């Protein structure tokens, strides 16, 4: 059906969803096999699935962009997008909440408990101080790791992300004032900052593994550290890629000063990733 319907654009039948589902089937099956060393099927299926997924994303979003550019989206559709994006970000917040919750629980409950009197029966002489390798893993000298100072790269990264938040807002104002030049400049800076952040993050990981001996397997500290920063890094990657797409769309002349939700959605997302980082910086790096 279509614009005959009171102006609200209802998408016609589409092949993309079913393609996306088959992609996920391949990826899930492949992932499961890969994790259980059933090779080469694992990696193969994973790769096939991922390829299909990328194909689907290009096709689906390409179609959305065309629809948007050919003016099919009326203000009501725009509102739908705003609602849905807000709720999506809410779900992301809850996703992160699970991992922050794990960090909180480990620090304020499980670790202190493991150090208390009753459990001394099992773990003699475990001094439950954060950061910790845990009572058993900690017994092996080769597992000891050095703490990560927040005032080096992490602080730098904070500055980078915060300023990227500023630049994207600048771009937004430029878009509304229809200054395409500033818009693209602002976006370019944002993307650049985003990828620089990622670069530093990767460097930091290598540093942690090689010098600090801080690994994913370094007890609950390593687990929470890498889970939180890694999951966040993954979101930064997504955000940066989406920003890049938006930038190219702007270069192609997409978006109007009064209607540009595609842009706003991504900037919302970017700000969200930004805020999460602040939480990370505080709870993962500073308060050790």
């Amino acid at each position: 059906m279509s614009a005959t319907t009171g102006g609200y654009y209802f998408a016609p039948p589409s092949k993309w969803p079913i393609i996306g589902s088959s992609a996920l089937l391949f990826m899930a099956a492949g992932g499961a096999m890969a994790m259980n060393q059933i090779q080469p099927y694992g990696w193969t299926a994973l790769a096939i699935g991922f390829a299909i997924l990328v194909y689907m994303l290009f096709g689906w979003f390409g179609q959305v962009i065309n629809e948007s550019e050919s003016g099919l989206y009326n203000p009501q559709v725009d509102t739908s997008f705003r609602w849905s994006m807000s709720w999506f970000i809410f779900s992301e917040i809850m996703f992160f909440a699970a991992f922050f919750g794990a960090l909180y629980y480990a620090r304020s409950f499980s670790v202190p408990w493991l150090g208390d009197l009753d459990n001394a029966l099992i773990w003699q002489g475990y001094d439950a101080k954060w950061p910790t390798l845990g009572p058993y893993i900690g017994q092996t000298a080769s597992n000891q790791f050095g703490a990560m100072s927040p005032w080096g790269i992490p602080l730098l990264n904070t500055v980078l992300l915060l300023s990227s938040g500023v630049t994207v807002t600048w771009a937004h104002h430029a878009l509304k004032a229809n200054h395409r030049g500033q818009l693209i400049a602002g976006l370019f800076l944002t993307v650049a900052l985003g990828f620089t952040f990622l670069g530093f993050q990767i460097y930091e990981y290598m540093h942690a593994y090689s010098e600090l001996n801080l690994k994913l397997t370094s007890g609950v500290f390593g687990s929470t550290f890498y889970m939180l920063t890694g999951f966040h890094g993954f979101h930064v990657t997504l955000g940066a890629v989406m920003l890049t797409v938006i930038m190219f769309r702007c270069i192609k002349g997409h978006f109007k000063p009064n209607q540009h939700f595609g842009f706003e959605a991504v900037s919302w997302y970017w700000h969200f990733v930004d805020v999460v980082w602040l939480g990370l910086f505080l709870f993962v790096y500073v308060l050790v």
Partner: protein
Amino acid sequence: MNSIFLNISLFIVRVAKSLAAQMSLMIFVLFSSKSVWADYDVNILPPVTPISHQIYGLHMYILYVCAAIFIIVFAMMFYSIFKFRKSTGAKPDVNFHESTLIEIIWTIIPFIILIAMAIPATKTVLDMKDTSNPDITIKVTAYQWGWRYDYSADDFGFYSNLSTPWSQIGQPGVPATEAKGKDYLLEVDNAMVVPVNKRVRLLVTSNDVIHGWYMPQLGVNQYGIPGFIKDTWFKAEKVGVYKGQCSQICGKLHGYMPITVEVKSEEDYVIWVKSGQAKWGKAAALTASVDNSVSRSDTQAEDPAKKFTMAEAKAHGEKVYATNCVACHQLTGKGQPPVFPALSGSKVVQGPIDQQIGVILNGRPGTAMQSFARLSDTDLAAVITYTKNSWDNNTGKVVQPSDVKGARKT
């Protein structure tokens, strides 16, 4: 609700019994093993500790309150069902669809009722949680699939395993060869023993997955969580034998790790401790549990110097196997691959003695194969010999208790 419960249930029983008659007939034909009719309970088992008495009372109290509410509420409903039916020409009173007053009333009243329930419950919770100044403390360690009790103060401890033989349980397709005894699945080789009228504090933990030390009549149900120790307590007021089971799913044999607590008089308890120290003194802690086929008919004394002949070893080994191994590796020795590998034709079993002893003493971490170090040298020697010379395996090797003893040291 109790009264309603009972009436309805009695009705159900009547209906169902007749059905059961026919159905069981059908099932007999299907499985040709006969069903057992024990007498049945409809309520919490008789309490024997201060806490479980409180629990019993609480349950009754709440049951009756709920029953009352249920009767009132549904009396109203059925009244309207009979009074206001279209077929008898009832006209709808369409204006009767809002009344702040009623809404407030039926918000407040339940609230008050709940408070009346919460107060006694709170008292019990506080008593339950107060594990202070115990008379004796016992460490309870769960493992797949049994229990270990350590009486640290008296410096001894022992394992407690299901003693119902698999010949009573049967296997899918392989019907039980022996009639089920009256304590089917509730009997253990060595019961936990406690003195009457003493505060017993339990330190519960586990060495693999989560289990639940559950004793209904003692009012105790405590998870054993690997790596953590959680404490709870009870004070049994009646001498007797009480039964419970593992309450938290812990893998294949979760249904087969019962708990038995024997409450003895002060004197008998002291005697038991003495014999316990003799039998399971710390020194012997490792070779503690004598497998039940032996302990029930105390023929097989523990003699490390013993020299097995192939025949002896296989004969005894078969018993040990039937109690400790058959559940996973099966009577046929074919196991249930890949989780429970076959022993018949297995490289490890046909391979060098020490290797197999190692696996059995240390288990295979991360798999369901746990350490059987708790079994005695003779039992291990016998069962290893049995596996090495049964089914498709005929290595001709006879393992001696001394071999096992040696392996233990390293």
